């Protein structure tokens, strides 16, 4: 039998010590995997909306787990319970862990009270992706939108999250904006708390 040092057996995955999250893989490895994920999903759908929905679902699964992982590891089993708290948690902590940097910007929508936007000049998942003309406004950022929705939803802030390309003047490639539209009850409970306090 060949001895293998690092792998220890645990009867249960929960007994395993949580990794510190410092391990890395090459960007290409991720890009290859992501491209396969997109290509596979393309074979399962008839239209762009469906494809975006499926990528979002995949992202959702990631987001829900990221929230759990980060709350446990970085926040001592606490999670944000305020709207702005969770938004900045997504914009900074989640982004930093997943993409190695804080997101470029977090803004409040000007037209609607319940909308927030996270923008990124060059979203990691879109790095090696160019969209064929016939696929219109399709954005692989749907996967990231799914991650954001997964985090928010699991933290008790249900929202509709979508990814959009926004052209930037003087730049060849558009930036990606993740649009977060919170469900009614989120803002309702938010304003309820405000009235209770005032």
């Amino acid at each position: 039998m060949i001895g293998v040092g690092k792998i220890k057996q645990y009867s249960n995955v929960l007994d395993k010590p949580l990794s510190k999250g410092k391990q890395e893989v090459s960007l290409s490895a991720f890009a290859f995997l992501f491209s396969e994920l997109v290509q596979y999903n393309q074979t399962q759908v008839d239209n762009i909306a469906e494809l975006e929905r499926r990528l979002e679902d995949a992202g959702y699964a990631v987001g829900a787990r990221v929230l759990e992982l980060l709350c446990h590891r970085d926040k001592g089993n606490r999670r944000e319970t305020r709207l702005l708290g969770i938004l900045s948690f997504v914009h900074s902590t989640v982004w930093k862990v997943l993409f190695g940097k804080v997101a470029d910007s977090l803004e409040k929508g000007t037209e609607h009270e319940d909308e927030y936007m996270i923008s990124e000049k060059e979203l990691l998942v879109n790095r090696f992706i160019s969209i064929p003309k016939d696929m219109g406004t399709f954005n692989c950022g749907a996967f990231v939108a799914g991650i954001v929705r997964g985090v928010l939803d699991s933290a008790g802030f249900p929202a509709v999250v979508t990814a959009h390309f926004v052209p930037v003047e003087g730049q060849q490639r558009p930036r990606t904006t993740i649009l977060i539209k919170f469900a009614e009850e989120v803002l309702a409970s938010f304003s309820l708390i405000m009235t209770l306090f005032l």
Partner: protein
Amino acid sequence: MVPKIDKLVNVLSTADKDVANFQVKLYDEMTTIEGLTEDGMYDATTMMATKLDLIREFFTMPNHHRKRDLIMAPVGPRSGDAIFANVERVNAELFTLTYGATVRQLLTDLEEVEEVNKQLDQMGYNIGIRLIDEFLAKSNVTRCVDFRETAEVIAKVGFKMFLGVTATVSNWDADGTCCSIILEDNPLVDFVELPDTCRGLYYCNILSGVIRGALEMVSMKTEVTWIRDVLRGDDAYELQVKLLKQVPEEYPYKDDE
């Protein structure tokens, strides 16, 4: 001499991003090594080239900084560590969770565990046939003399450069066409536990597909199977790679046409 060269390598392996800084450091360190013979210098440069990928910095140094005429070591194949240190990297957790999401999606769509195994292998194959280009471009490896060398290169350079982990090769058969690649660490399986309904699943089947696809692009037909899998209760991840056929290279065109 050896400890001195080691010290040199240590100083440099702090990997300065700034090339100018880097060169100053390199120069400073080299001037402190008195009585550096040509052989010693050769060793040092070889070490730098293979271990640390520093030779490029070395080449661009002004002549008088190189202290003396050097016999430069040929730029050899780069080690997996050196390549991995130089490529862009992402957090392994993003990779792990994305892979997990992919497998989950396949399980929901395809229902049969056998079908999922097949699909994962196919995805790996698709990756492998493209990944080999990047591998050859970045690693500088030359043609392997035999399948033994090929397996070593996959384990030591391939796994390291993409996944940041190393593997070992063992269990060779007598004629050198079949061996095991044993993974010491596997970034795909963090947080994973297989439920009873997925007992037949080869969770990491994408890896076997990658190896098969990549080797096919360099004219080797192989069969890659899982022998041991920690998720299935074994004590390691072991992939058996069996060389079926070496396809002779054919040119797609004829000269006289």
